[in-house]
C-alpha cells in the first residue's frame, strides 16, 4: 500500500462527496419548500419573508447557492436546522454515533452467525444444515426490515416481554439498559446481512474446497482439520470483506426504517424527520454524512482486503 494508492483512495472519497453533494443539493433544490416560509411560518408578512430570502441568498443563482453551501460544509458548517433553529452539524454527528453503534453491532452479530453458518453449509452440502441455511437466506433477503422489526417487536417485546420495545439509552449512562434497548434493532438490521453473507460464504467456501491447492493439501497427507483451518478458511473469508463493505450501503438504508420503528434517535431517524418537515439543511447534511460514511467504510474494507490478500499490489 503505497502513498499513491492512499492518495487515490482519498481522491475517490472526495469525488464521492462531491458527486453526492451535487446530487443531494440538486434534489433538495427541487423540493417544494420555501425556506423562508419554513423559517417564519405561514403567517409571516411578505416583507419579512423577502428580508429572510435576501439574507439567506435564496434569490441568487443556484450554482452560487451550491458553492456557498459547499464551502460552508467544507469548513464543518452544515447550517442551521429550519425546524429546531440549532446548528445541524453537531446534531447529525451525535445521531451518527448512535447509528454506528447499531451498524457495528449488526455487523458483529452477522460475522458471528453468518460465517460459521455459511461454512458449515458448504462442508455439509445438501445436508440438513445446508438446507436450513438456504431457508434462512431466502427468508432473510425476502423480508423488508419493517416486517422483521414488527415481527420481532410482537414476539420479544409484546408476547414474551423480554426486551423494551422502543427507545434509546446511552451506553455511558446505563450500559446494560443500553444493550437491552439495542438488541432488537441490532438483530433486525443483521437479518438481511446474515442471509446475504451466509450465502456468499457458502459459495466462496465451495469454490475454495474445489480448488487445486486444497486438493494438493489433502494429497500431501494433511489431516482434514488442518486442511480446513490452515488452507481453506483464510481464502474463503477474503471475499467476505468485500461483500460486507458493499452491504454497508444496504445496512445504512435499513437503518433508516429500523431507527424509525424502534424510536432510536440515529441519523436515519433524523433524516426521516427532516424529510417530513422539509428541513433542507438537515436533509443535505444527513444524506452527505451517510454517503461519506459509506465511502470511508468501503475504503477501510479495501485496505483490510489488501492487508489480508498479499496477491494484490497497489502501486
Amino acid at each position, binding site marked *: 500500500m503505497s502513498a499513491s494508492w492512499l492518495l487515490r483512495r482519498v481522491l475517490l472519497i472526495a469525488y464521492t462527496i462531491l458527486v453526492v453533494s451535487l446530487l443531494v443539493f440538486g434534489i433538495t433544490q427541487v423540493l417544494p419548500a420555501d425556506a423562508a416560509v419554513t423559517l417564519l411560518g405561514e403567517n409571516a408578512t411578505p416583507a419579512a419573508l423577502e428580508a429572510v430570502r435576501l439574507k439567506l441568498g435564496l434569490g441568487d443563482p443556484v450554482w452560487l447557492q451550491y458553492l456557498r453551501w459547499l464551502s460552508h460544509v467544507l469548513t464543518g458548517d452544515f447550517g442551521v436546522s429550519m425546524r429546531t433553529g440549532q446548528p445541524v452539524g453537531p446534531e447529525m454527528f451525535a445521531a451518527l454515533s448512535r447509528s454506528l453503534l447499531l451498524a457495528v453491532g449488526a455487523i458483529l452479530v452477522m460475522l458471528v452467525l453468518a460465517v460459521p453458518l455459511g461454512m458449515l453449509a458448504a462442508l455439509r452440502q445438501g445436508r440438513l444444515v445446508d438446507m436450513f441455511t438456504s431457508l434462512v437466506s431466502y427468508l432473510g*433477503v*425476502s423480508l*423488508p426490515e419493517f416486517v422483521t422489526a414488527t415481527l420481532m417487536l410482537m414476539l420479544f417485546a409484546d408476547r414474551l416481554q423480554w426486551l423494551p420495545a422502543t427507545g434509546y439509552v446511552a451506553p455511558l449512562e446505563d450500559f446494560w439498559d443500553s444493550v437491552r434497548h439495542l438488541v432488537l434493532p441490532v438483530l433486525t438490521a443483521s437479518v438481511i446481512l446474515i442471509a446475504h453473507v451466509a450465502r456468499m460464504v457458502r459459495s466462496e467456501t465451495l469454490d475454495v474446497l474445489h480448488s487445486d491447492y486444497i486438493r494438493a493439501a489433502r494429497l500431501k497427507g494433511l489431516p482434514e482439520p488442518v486442511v480446513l483451518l490452515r488452507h481453506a478458511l483464510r481464502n474463503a473469508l477474503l471475499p467476505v470483506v468485500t461483500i460486507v463493505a458493499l452491504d454497508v450501503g444496504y445496512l445504512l438504508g435499513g437503518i*433508516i426504517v429500523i431507527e424509525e420503528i424502534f424510536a432510536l434517535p440515529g441519523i436515519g431517524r433524523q433524516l*426521516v424527520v427532516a424529510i417530513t418537515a422539509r428541513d433542507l439543511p438537515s436533509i443535505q447534511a444527513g444524506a452527505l454524512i451517510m*454517503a461519506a460514511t459509506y465511502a470511508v467504510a468501503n475504503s477501510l474494507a479495501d485496505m483490510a482486503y489488501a492487508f489480508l490478500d498479499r496477491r494484490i499490489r497497489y502501486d
Partner: protein
Amino acid sequence: MTEAFRRLLRTPQGALSIALLILLAAVCVAGPALAPYDPEQIDFLGRFSPPGALHWLGADQLGRDVLSRLLVGARSTVPLALLATLLGTLGGTVIGTVSAYLGGRWDEAIMRTIDAVMAVPGLLLALLLVSTLGNGSFNAAIAIAVAFAPGMARVTRSVALTVRNQDYVKAAIARGEGGGWIVFREMLPNVVAPVVIETTIRVAFAVMLFATLSFLGLGAQPPASEWGLMVSEARRYLHQAPWIIIAPSVAIGLTAIAFNLLGDGLRDALNPRDER
C-alpha cells in the same frame, strides 16, 4: 427459450417460483373478483375480529376484511414494483452498455460517478426523490427506478466488458463489422441472460422497497390496501390483533421469495455451458 423454460421447471427453485408467481398473477388479475368483501367497507362492530369462518384472515381496526384487502392489495404493489424494476433496468442497461462501449477515460469517469451515487443508500435516494416528486404510488415507483439504475448500470457494464473481450467479438471487429452489429447481434444476446437474472432478483427488492416507502407514509396513501401500508396502520394494534400485521407481512415475504427463487432458477437454467 422453451428449452430454457423446461430446464427452469426442472430445478426445485424454478418450479416453486413458477407456482408462486402463477398464484400471484392470478391474484393480481382476479383479486377483486375473488375478494369476499369490499376491501374498504368499514364495519365498526366487526373490528378486530380474529380469523374465523366470517373473516378467514380476520378483520382490521376498522372492521375491514383482511383477506379482501390482501387480494386487492396485490394490484397496488406487484405491477408497480415490476414497472419500477423495468424502468431502472432499462436506464441502467443503457448507461452500462454505453460506458462499456466507450471504454477508456469515459468509462472510468462514468463508473466512478456511478460508484459515488451508490454511496447514497437506495432507500435514502428513493426517500429524497419521493419527497421531491410528492407522495404516491406512481412517484414511489419512479423513485425506485432511479435508485436501481446505478446498480444495474454496474452489473450490465461488467457483463458487457466480459463479453466484449470474447474472441467472437474480436472476430467481428477484425472482419470490419459496424458498431451496431457488434453491440446488437454479437454482444447483446450474451449480455441479456445475466441482466435478466439480476433484474428478476431486483423485482424482489422493489417489492420490499415499495412496501417500505408505503410503510413510511411516502408511497401508497390510505385508504389503499397496499401491503406495506397495511402493516404500518396495524402496528399500533400489534398486541390486540397480530393477524392484521402477519397477513400482509407473509404476502410481502412470499412475493419477494417467489422472485428470488425465480432469479436463482434462471441462473441455473440460462447458463449456456449446461445446455447439453
